């Protein structure tokens, strides 16, 4: 394995992951250019104006008009060429892609995620399309999604703060107790990939991994049919641990709070 292959980030499997990589590369190029200037000054002046070569110094405080202008110009140049550009690009990317969550009526895969020490729980709505019913497909450690279709995650945590990280999609979001956070991407490639917890969550934080299985639509349909069947047969209605889900519509934290007061769902249920 060559060095460059070794340090390459994981393969991109989402429609918008390349935006992050390309912004990363732009920033790298600009930062390198400026850093080269700094190094030229640092090493060049150190060489040229060392005490051995240069005895007579230029007695200046650097407060002549010309010098002040030059300094200010450098500051503004950096700001415009690097900062404003990447802020602008990043902002566009966020608004057009990462914050542009699928609409309620779009045909997407919806998944609820519950993080706990040290495990990822995933919940598919099952045949009736409603969450938190007896036919929900529950899985932990393994997440199955179809390729070529947007997936939206609603994420919360049972105990401490975790962070759902898809290295191959270049995105992550924190899973916070008492809040529901959201994340979406659209997989473009089938295969098995890693899901990580990126936020320190205790001693076995490093073991808190899951696998992302991206299936072709046919495989996914087959998997889902089987899983739904198994869920209906195997779902123990007495097992309260199976009812950690919530209504998909309750997305914001206010709704979650209301929810917990009215029909004692999320928070209360987990207590029992």
């Amino acid at each position, binding site marked *: 394995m060559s060095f460059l*292959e070794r340090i*390459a*980030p*994981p393969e991109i499997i989402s429609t918008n992951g390349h935006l992050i990589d390309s*912004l990363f590369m732009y*920033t790298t190029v600009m*930062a390198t250019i400026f850093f080269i200037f*700094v*190094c030229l*000054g640092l090493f060049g002046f*150190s060489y040229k*104006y060392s*005490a051995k070569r240069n005895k007579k*110094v230029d*007695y200046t*405080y*650097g*407060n002549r008009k010309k*010098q002040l202008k030059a*300094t200010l110009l450098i500051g503004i*140049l950096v*700001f415009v060429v690097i900062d404003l550009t*990447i*802020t602008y*690009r*990043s*902002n566009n*990317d*966020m*608004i057009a892609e*990462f*914050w542009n969550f699928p609409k309620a009526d779009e045909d997407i895969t919806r998944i609820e995620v519950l993080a706990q020490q040290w495990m990822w729980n995933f919940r598919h709505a099952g045949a009736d399309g409603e969450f938190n019913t007896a036919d929900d497909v529950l899985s932990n450690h393994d997440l199955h999604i179809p390729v070529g279709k947007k997936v939206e995650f609603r994420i*919360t*945590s049972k*105990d*401490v*703060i975790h*962070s759902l990280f898809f*290295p191959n999609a270049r*995105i992550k979001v*924190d899973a916070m*107790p*008492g*809040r529901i*956070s959201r994340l979406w991407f659209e997989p473009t490639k089938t295969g098995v*990939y*890693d899901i990580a917890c*990126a*936020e*320190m*969550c*205790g*001693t*076995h*934080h*490093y073991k808190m*991994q899951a696998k992302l299985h991206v299936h072709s639509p046919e495989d996914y349909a087959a998997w889902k049919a089987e899983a739904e069947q198994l869920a209906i047969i195997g779902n123990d209605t007495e097992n309260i641990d199976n009812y*950690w889900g919530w209504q998909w519509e309750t997305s914001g934290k206010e709704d979650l709070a209301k929810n917990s007061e009215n029909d004692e769902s999320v928070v209360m249920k*987990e*207590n029992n």
Partner: protein
Amino acid sequence: MTYAHGKHAAPTTFLSKYVFSYDHKVIGKQFLWYGIFFLGIGGMMALLIRWTLAFPGEAFPVLGPLLFPYTDGVVPPDTYSMLFTLHGTIMIFFAITPILIGAFGNYCIPLMIGARDMAFPLFNMLSFHIAVISGVLLLASLFTPMGGAAGGWTSYPTLSTLVGSPGSGQTLWCLSIFVLGVSSTMGAVNYITTVICFRAPGMGYFDMPLTIWGLWLTAILNAIFLPVLGAGVMLLTFDRVFGTTFFLAGAAATSGSGDPILFQHVFWIFGHPEVYILILPAWGMVSDFLSFFARKPAFGAKATALSMTTITILSTLVYGHHMFTTQMSPLLTQTFMTLTMTISIPSAILFANWLGTLYKGSIRFDSPMLFSLGVVFVFGLGGLTGLYLGTVSTDLYLHDTYFVVGHFHYTMAASVLLGGFAGTYFWFPKMFGRMMDEKLAKIHFWITMIGLNGVFMGMMVVGFAGMHRRLYNPFVYEFLEKLIPINKFITYSALLMGVGQLPFVWNFVYSLYKGKKAPQNPWEVGTLEWTIPSPPIHYNFEEIPTVKCGPHEFGNPNLKDGRDFQYQTEELV
């Protein structure tokens, strides 16, 4: 610049001279020893962490079996969490803060502004004693039944509440930080007052050396923002000890609807200024040293001071970029991103001024200068890599990866460490009246420089490859397995850097007793501390000096007597 202490007799007994001393010079040295002690502990912890990352499951050589007898010398996972938690805490609060702010602040402020002592010597002594109590509390937490704090130095709830970390280790951690906050606030009150009231007659704010500017701004940030951290850890202590639910939410909080994110807000309102609290003294020193050793007035000294002030103010407005992944509202996120980016204007001006100082100078490469140039280099890298993390979309990927670790080590560890070494080499003659060995200092510089760039550059590389932080064994993830060789390289670099500190320790201890006697002004610099003997007499200045020119008067063509600098007490020729 209206007040001065009178002359007072030096204490005679051992206790009043070395333990309960009011003398700022002694307190500065106390802080120096305290900081170096913790720097050693924190450094050893870093090596244990690095060893675990490069050789997971292998026994740490030599020391391992002694420290972890139950696992045959392998660092166990829970201990690993404690190690990186305490490594961070110790390095930030117990090594850098005491050395850069406690030691240099106490030692240099009165000497460089022409005062006989700090404004409130008693307060100053108490500040050190409280810091000692805080250090004892922290070390004591290691010996509690369930071990020390293990929630990361950021101690995010709910991991840091009883939900995630039972036992008294984390509680002691909170208390220790609170007590240290009290100590630092007392120090800060002292520094600010001293600079305002005790400058020598004739010394305006812009006649102060930039070191003092850095220390002064640091003290201001400390006084304003440490109470915020104090409030945060106090509420966390309440949660842990009295059962309040400020930071508890979700299923684990049986009775609460508090908010764990609240702690993150409070923590980073303090935490981001803290970054600048650590780096500002180093910036100040570097700005001075570049001018001192380039034998040329500091380029745009006023602009440098004002840039540092601007950064101080901006640093209070940008803390949200630590919390992008908590999904704040888009408006807040955009605001924090834009504000973060504006910091690069004053930073770029700082760099322009530093390079402007070197331009057409006559540079002497003594050890303080080498370390200062090193700071410019590593801070350039550290500052530029900050761009990726202030940008929301790249932060989505890089947040909580080793890229972040590499970035903040470049800014907070590498720059500050090199700045601290520069200061140590520079003021050692004044502190102890003896010179340190130049040759060993240069060896120390080059090994440290190679080592730390290997470590932190390596961290950024593995971070870009997706390796996230605080993993006991990252290689349980398939996509990280290929990074084992690079992690080994980082660990070897860290070992090299560790070994590179041996010449420094030897040099320091040897020079303390056997070093060449230092002349009054070995570096030929004109600031006030060099107008008095090395080491200074008990009350520093026989007569309070009158300042007649700036601190960076070098290479004035009107100077006739063979000198290329003039003292601040002399009329500008």
